[in-house]
């Protein structure tokens, strides 16, 4: 009886794993096939491995340019979110000041706001600031939308730090800024990692904001380039599949290397709610 249920458990798990993996694997393999073989033999290994699609994507400018743009946009977003969010969360957690509750609620309200609501006015604003088609035009709104969650997570961590730390720092004549930099931040590596990963994965994959705020293909992150690419070469599936696979490589490597932090980062927002 027990082994029966453990077999059926394994069966379900393998089945679901198959549903997850088969599309991914066939896409990666599809990049090695010709159009004809893709039609005749979509699941199996290629009869003959055609490297042309991967090579032409790897030697072309487009893939690297778009990945570079993605790195710029997402690291810029992470950096800005961290710096600005840390300062604010520190003030909420460690400084006693007038209007604290109200200002804190103001930021939390941001968690409610769908980006879609703001997208058209954002376009107008970014255009009027002259930032359309520039990295800042995407980084600033993206960081602003991630700020609520970042402040919430960082604040939750900062306020658990022992009060004695600050008392000791004051006696040594320490300012808030030095206290944050030399005492709080070194203690906060885990939460900084969590917030960074959260912001990084979201901005690496972000689509609607860059789609609206960037117009020239030279500035596109991979999410926009891959859409353009699949539109232009719509009949050349092997080429598209190779390109898709290559754009996924950084994310998959990052996931396998930093899986623990990623799971923590992406679910902590949910668990803290």
């Amino acid at each position, binding site marked *: 009886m027990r082994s029966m249920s453990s077999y059926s458990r394994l069966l*379900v798990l393998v089945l679901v794993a198959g549903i997850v993996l088969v599309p991914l694997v066939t896409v990666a393999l599809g990049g090695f096939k010709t159009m004809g073989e893709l039609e005749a033999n979509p699941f199996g290994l290629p009869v003959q491995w055609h490297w042309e699609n991967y090579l032409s994507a790897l030697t072309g400018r487009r893939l690297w340019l778009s990945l570079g743009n993605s790195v710029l946009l997402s690291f810029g977003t992470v950096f800005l979110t961290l710096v600005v969010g840390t300062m604010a969360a520190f003030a909420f957690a460690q400084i006693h000041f007038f209007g604290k509750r109200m200002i804190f609620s103001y930021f939390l309200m941001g968690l409610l706001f769908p980006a879609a*609501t703001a997208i058209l006015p954002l376009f107008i604003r970014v255009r009027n600031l002259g930032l359309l088609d520039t990295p800042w035009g995407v980084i600033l709104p993206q960081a602003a939308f991630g700020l609520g969650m970042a402040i919430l997570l960082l604040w939750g961590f900062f306020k658990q*730090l022992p009060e004695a730390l600050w008392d000791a720092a004051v006696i040594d004549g320490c300012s808030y800024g030095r206290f944050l930099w030399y005492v709080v931040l070194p203690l906060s590596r885990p939460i900084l990692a969590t917030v960074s990963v959260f912001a990084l994965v979201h901005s690496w994959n972000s689509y609607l904001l860059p789609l609206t705020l960037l117009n020239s293909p030279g500035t596109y992150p991979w*999410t926009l380039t*891959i859409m353009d690419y699949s539109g232009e070469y719509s009949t050349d599936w092997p080429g598209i599949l190779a390109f898709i696979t290559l754009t*996924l490589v950084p*994310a998959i490597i990052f996931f396998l290397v930093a899986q623990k932090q990623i799971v923590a980062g992406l679910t902590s927002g*949910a668990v803290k709610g």
Partner: protein
Amino acid sequence: MSGTGAINIAIPVGSPTRRSDKRRLALGRNLAAGGFLAPATILFTVFVVLPVVEAAWYSFYRWNGYGIPTDWVGWRNYLTLFNNSVFASAAWNTALVVAVSLLVQLPLGLALALMVARNSRSSMIFRTIFFLPYVLGEVAAGLIWRFVFDGNVGLMAAAARKIGIEAPFILADPDLAIYAVLTVVVWKYFGFHMMIYIAGLQDIPREMREAAEIDGASRWQSLRYVILPMLWPAIRISIFFSVVGALQLFDVVMPLTGGGPSNATHTFVTFQYTFGITRMNIGFGSAMGVVIFLICVTFTLLYRRFVMRDAG
């Protein structure tokens, strides 16, 4: 929600400090707080709060985005919206996504979480696999499944030919395409919800389950009366994220169907993008944005009030 955290008062209570000193210190604290909060406040106000307020304002104009809005049309954008059959189908599709998220994705995530909650090596591997789609970009997921569903070269077509039936062009069929969208949504997000449940399961003390077992509870009884009630905080968070995510679904749909064929698979946001943003109908698109906003905020407030009541 907004408790004031650790409050550090620089002066020990009862120290012989004069009032003016205290006042000066309070002023100093307020100035310091202002300095720390200024960048966040400016960024958040300029790029989140003001745009949302402006969306409400623009939604009463007909405007192509140049100059300043002058063509006041009152509620006309909203009326156009509510009389639009594509909007109605977008609303229906969005409701379907919510329903499938709640009725398929969450039970699936929960069942799998129960199967892989123990920290064995094989469980870890399955967890990694199940979580993978969540980490991959929505756009890539959409394109991958466009290939899977493609009527000529796709996997579904090949599978259909193998069992001897005609290959269906799922994405080209206005009646079927939405099911493709729903499939991809479940595929993409079930692992995320599974992780929420695993975190919840690991918070349940071992003794609770063992006690139930000792008392002779069957597996089903221990699930129904011990595990599920204790998992309720995780479940309600996962419901919340499913609904709010479904209401804003966009990235997956664009590469998969782009809202087509014949506008059959629009969600609220792809509708807004197609008819508001690409055509620079700022007023109309903003009206759609306001509707999304109202639905999200109403849901969140009601959910907080009635479901998350006892949560911090």
